[in-house]
């Protein structure tokens, strides 16, 4: 199912499809392991739709909700 990273529930895994962000941010996220076709797992979501903690590449990464909204993913069962 296609959705955004921001809408994934805690504990869900997904694969990244597309990132609608400007090149600088995209480059940084890619270097950190977040790029189309990589797998991720949502570890935690800060309260009130806050920042999201994801597991990617074996070490947790925190990203803001508004960035996560621009990352399209396919949720895996």
């Amino acid at each position, binding site marked *: 199912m296609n959705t955004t990273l921001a809408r994934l529930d805690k504990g869900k895994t997904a694969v990244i499809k597309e990132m609608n962000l400007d*090149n600088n941010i995209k480059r940084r996220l890619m270097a950190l392991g977040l*790029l189309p076709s990589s797998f991720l797992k949502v570890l935690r979501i800060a309260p009130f739709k*806050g920042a999201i*903690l994801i597991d990617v590449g074996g*070490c947790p990464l925190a990203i803001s909700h508004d960035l996560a909204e621009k990352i399209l993913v396919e949720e895996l069962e």
Partner: protein
Amino acid sequence: MKEVRIGLIGIPNSGKSTIFNKLTETYQIVGNWPGKTVETVERAVKFNDKHFILIDFPGTQTLTPTSMEEEIAREYMIENKPNVIIQVASAIDLERSIYLSLELMELGIPIIIALNQFDEAIKQGFEINVEKLSKVLGVPVIPTVAMKGEGIDKLVEKALDLAHSKPKGNIITYEDIMPQINNIMSIIKEFLPDRYPLEWFALKLLEEDPWVTRKITELDTEKRLGDILEKEKDYVKKSTNMHPSLLLVNNRRSVAEKITNEVRKIKPVSKSKFIETLDLLSISSFGYLLLIVVMTTVFVLTFGVGLLFRDTIQLIFFALSSQFVFVITDPLLNAILSGVQLSLLVGLSFIIPVVFLFHFFFSLLDDSGYLPRAAFLIDKAMRKIGLNGKAFIPLLLGYGCSVPACVTCRILEGDKPRFVTALMITLIPCASRMIIIYGLIAIYIGIITALAIYLFNLFVVLLIGMVVGRSVNLNCESTGLIMVLPPYRVPLIKNALRKTWARAKDFVYIAIPIIIAGTVFLKILEILGIMEHLNLLFDPLFLGLFGLPGYVLSFLLFGAIRKEFALVFLVTTLNGNPLFYLSPNQIIIFTLITLFYIPCVATTVTLIKELRLRKTLIIIGINLLTAIIVGSVAHIIFLFS
């Protein structure tokens, strides 16, 4: 022969400064959050009879900077090239470390990898095949545990051996676009000085790195590159369907991932239940409560234990000083002696306990890994102001001292976020202002009022952050939080004590001597009757605005040098007990004014260095205005209540 220069380079929080401290016997701040070191530091080291120079770098996630401390690190690497790089890799963040290795190899400097935090990798169930990693990358890899010094000897020996060897060179081949890279290389080769890494410059040009592009434009005086770069980039875009910068990142990324999977096995391990629960709690909705509890505990402990200390210290002090009773008739000498005595008493009973206790408790917190979690939790609220969660870290540091906190703003992306955060930091009560809150409010009015003052201050800081953030259009420039979260670590008392001393020693070496001199000076002014003139001059203004006597101006002036002076000289001038001269309401108004009125000299100098004069003046203006508004509003409220 020139001494070998060895650079410690690695992703944030990998343990560079821990290794640096071990080898140099100096102290660079170590803690458990990314972004502590924000400046390069070089020190001469003598190690097993060998001399060399060691350089501690700020952490760099990649060699394409997104924040200032990364820019500083990267520029230093290129302009003041070390002879050897010790890449301090993190064994618990292997993939990102290898990504950086791949980038560092493009620099053409011999590299050795310290696979640090190896103990934690084992605990987390990561089995890393070190030999294989070394073979795949083609560089020596030494597993290390920096705090315990494990592997450091071997690391340094190997690094020194490497100093005069040839660098291994790039292991990635950017096959699809090699002709383009070669073409650019052949052109820039004609004007690029030898000391710069040729291939790296070509790659960074394709990546559209602003600093490299600027550098090349400067060097390319005959405009040889012309529009060739654009053509090559267009070609890459067309043929690969990807922007060249993303293409390069993608290539390195997939190599890093492949290598990681080859050398690392993950075994399931049972994690500590306590840490797991703590981790869960600290970033759930319960976390907000925890944040309040944690910060309140730090303040209450500091004030509470400080009060205990104060009584004991005063008892000892009076017992001692009653042993030395002199009858002195000369008024000048008398002024000097009583000034020295009084200021020593104040120094020992007000300043030392509070400052040391606060920094000690805060150091424990900062070593535990709580700060980045607080940043994660608060990100949403900070996004509302237009900042991101990372800005919360320098703000928290501001409760210790504004100077390093303002410097730490370098970890934020963009000039506007740095400006707004620095402004907020200047308004946050640092340890010096904590001494004022303690010395006037906690002692004479009560700890609850002291806490209320912190809360009120926080409200004002957020309000100003929001208003100023809106008016400079912070949102347009600010990016969201992107931060690697380190694991919780058990803080070591020894490390915390060392950090406490590093952060608090200025109060002993700098503040106390000035306090003694200043008190004597004020006593002399008093004898000469100059104080009264000053008072008469400023009484109308201060009484009218704040309901305070004019003489407080002289304390505020001293407070501009170091904030705690405002309290110290108030107490020493009023002979120990301000309550004889000022009402509780006046004390509260005075304290509120000291919180906001002006950044101290050291902070001002730092602000000018970090943000330039214009922004510093704006910050000073906002500080003054805030103090006047807060002070006079409080005065009015007290008048009518």
